[in-house]
């Protein structure tokens, strides 16, 4: 289904209402993360609303039509709304929707039993393989020249799913994992059942408390790779990364906006030094930093509301490398404006900060994004 700009606005208004009324309400107690059942219920509702994809139904779910600019703008806007209500829920829906999108792109059939059945790990076990991944992706699919030996070696290691565990954050109920892997000397995608994996749940993770972290590895050497050619596999990886990074950014901006609203409201209510703290330049400066970071990220997001093939992956990586640390700084200021209460888990700001930290570290993290940007630019230098 192809949508236009007006449809997008209407659909976003609808998602915004759903996020406020259902997701934010369910997540109203930041110190008590929503349980698996509640997440599953909300996810079914999101499926019924068409935000999350359903098997066999074509619609306008998140990331369903990345070739369409309006649909991209919808996905980014929707994740921003949901991230505003709760970053954990937004992350779960983002990754699961992206996994569905990739499965379709790759022509894979899977039999998801629940809305959150399918998990995705779009990157290798650490970072983004320095500059090698960028080199690899930047080569034209038809490029006859073999990739450099160093790049090939690094890619093989980065996607070695057996010796190296990959951190995966997902709803506890996931059953199947889609991830890129190294298979018989080449790059491939694999769809693996959870029982075929060694995937212990970690004791705790820094944020996104609604979900869990797993360290995942293949138990046996990868035997089944998905049937497709190199070009399709690489194309899907480039899409996966671009959409993943955009999703992470959109969720982070939504979450920060919520923090900003909390900080502004608190500053307009809390009195210290004989006046409302909003009158102190120290607090004004923090509020301004928060606002500036959110606006810059919003501007960047708006610029990515284009058809996926018109989006430069290096530009997304670059935005990520610059904006995520800035958004985390802003979330820190949200905590700081609140003073002591900002540190308490029942108040909200500290969770926003933790969630933003996790979003920064997902998808390879930001340190790796710098190397990726360099590698991306280097090929044509």
């Amino acid at each position: 289904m192809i949508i236009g700009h007006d449809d997008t606005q209407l659909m976003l208004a609808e998602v915004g209402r759903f996020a406020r009324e259902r997701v934010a309400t369910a997540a109203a107690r930041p110190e008590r993360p929503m349980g698996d059942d509640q997440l599953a219920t909300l996810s079914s509702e999101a499926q019924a609303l068409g935000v999350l994809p359903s098997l066999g139904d074509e619609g306008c779910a998140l990331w369903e039509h990345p070739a369409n600019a309006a649909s991209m703008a919808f996905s980014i806007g929707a994740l921003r709304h949901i991230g505003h209500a709760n970053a954990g829920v937004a992350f779960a829906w983002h990754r699961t929707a992206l996994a569905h999108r990739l499965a379709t792109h790759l022509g894979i059939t899977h039999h998801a039993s629940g809305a959150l059945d399918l998990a995705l790990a779009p990157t290798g076990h650490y970072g983004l393989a320095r500059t090698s991944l960028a080199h690899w992706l930047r080569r034209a699919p038809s490029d006859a020249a073999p990739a450099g030996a160093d790049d090939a070696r690094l890619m093989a290691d980065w996607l070695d799913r057996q010796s190296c565990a990959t951190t995966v954050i997902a709803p506890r109920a996931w059953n199947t994992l889609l991830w890129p892997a190294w298979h018989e000397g080449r790059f491939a995608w694999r769809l693996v059942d959870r029982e075929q994996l060694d995937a212990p749940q970690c004791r705790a993770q820094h944020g996104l408390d609604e979900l869990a972290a797993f360290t995942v590895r293949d138990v046996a050497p990868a035997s089944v790779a998905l049937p497709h050619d190199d070009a399709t596999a690489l194309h899907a990886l480039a899409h996966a990364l671009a959409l993943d990074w955009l999703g992470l950014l959109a969720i982070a901006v939504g979450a920060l906006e919520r923090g900003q609203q909390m900080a502004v409201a608190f500053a307009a209510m809390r009195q210290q030094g004989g006046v409302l703290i909003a009158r102190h330049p120290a607090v004004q400066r923090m509020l301004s930093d928060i606002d500036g970071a959110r606006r810059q990220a919003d501007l960047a997001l708006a610029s990515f509301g284009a058809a996926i093939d018109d989006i430069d992956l290096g530009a997304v990586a670059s935005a990520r490398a610059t904006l995520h640390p800035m958004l985390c700084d802003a979330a820190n200021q949200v905590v700081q404006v609140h003073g002591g209460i900002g540190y308490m888990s029942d108040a909200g700001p500290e969770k926003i900060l933790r969630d933003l930290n996790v979003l920064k570290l997902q998808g390879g993290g930001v340190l790796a994004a710098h190397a990726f940007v360099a590698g991306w630019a280097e090929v044509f230098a």
Partner: protein
Amino acid sequence: MNAPKRDGHLDGHLPPEHPLSPHAKYRDLPPVGRLLSNYAVRDLWDTDFARLPWPLARQRRRARDFAERHMAPIADALDLAPHLAPGECHPDARALLREAGRQGWLSYFLPRPLGSMPWSTLAYPAIWQCSVIVEEFSRSCGGLMLLLSAHHLGAMPLLLAGNARQLLVDLPSVYRRCERGDPHLMAFAITEPGAGSDAEDGHGAATYRPGVVATPTAGGWLLNGRKCYISGGDLATSVTVFAALQGEGMESWTCFHVDAATPGFRGARTERKMGMRASGAAELEFVDVFVPHARVVGALRQGWAINRATLNASRIPVAAMGVGLARAATEAALDFARRYTLGGKPLVHYQEVQLQLATMVAETRAIRALVWQEARHAWRPRQLHASLAKFHATDVAQRVCEMAMDLVADHGVLHEQRVEKIFRDVRLTRIFEGTNQVNRLSLVEDWQGQLLDADHSMGV
């Protein structure tokens, strides 16, 4: 993936035996040149250890041993333990407090026989000793460090303003119980629901209507009101509580040494915190709590000065918390970079990782240098120096923790990798003991005489 042991050199660097590798060649220089250039390559902790006067160095080593042996092993369990109701103490924390008391870590602000401070350290400011210890404890666990350190904050008003009896009888008896392994913990209570920054900043206090008030009664005072966010307040046997005298403003603040067993005193709730979870922050309720005259610390209406002097003494150790946490984050990142391999070699071989680690180690050592520089002279800690050290060290420390998380990347979110906990712990140091904004203002407050003196040409 774990790295195999490798010899030789790091990528991008020459092996030590290479002709262009300078260090090994210094020993071949002529005697004077050798004397001036040939250095020993030591572990950085050992380097700074050797730079400390030996009595403090000895305390540093003892503190590290204690922290590694008794704090680090229980740090995770306490961080992840369910939230406790006021007055409850995790059995591991209870055992730690006992052991810490027995080993003198709860009584080191007075020399023997009054406390446990070795006589040899008396030649140096107690703040310096405290900072060295706090760094080691923070490195092992921020929360457990706070559990032990909040006690010293609570005792500080007795040290700074106590009369002879309070100083020579009351405080030593607190210390003796600690040393017997039956800790008498103390807590420090200035913050009120309506006054956080206003309890730390004179300009704010001037307009604040006090929330905890002392009313005269036969033989003493009755305290009423609420204090909040008091570290260790619900576990404390006694608390130094700051209250205004009935009908007067903050200038009447008076410090009362309140026995927690007094009727009307109650730990009303404890906060659910982001980090430093091994230490509780309690809301304390006072309903007609009787405090005899003998337990007024200093004189009536001296509370504000005692409070500020206490903060001047405690903010350098808070800066040291930043150092300890930055060091913990750097060590965790180093460990990860040496162990974790990508492309067949440990991450530490990659230049971007080396740059990150180099910055982290430099920042950590720079704030340690700042803390030691200020602590070394902190016989009468100046507000400007204490505030500066506090806000700068803790701001930098958080940046170092963020760099560590970035380096550990996708894995940095896992509790198992340690850095996420360190981040949650360090985040507090920029908020308590005065937010870092208020500490900046505190620096200026202390400087204003010179700032306003047009004839004074100012040096920095």
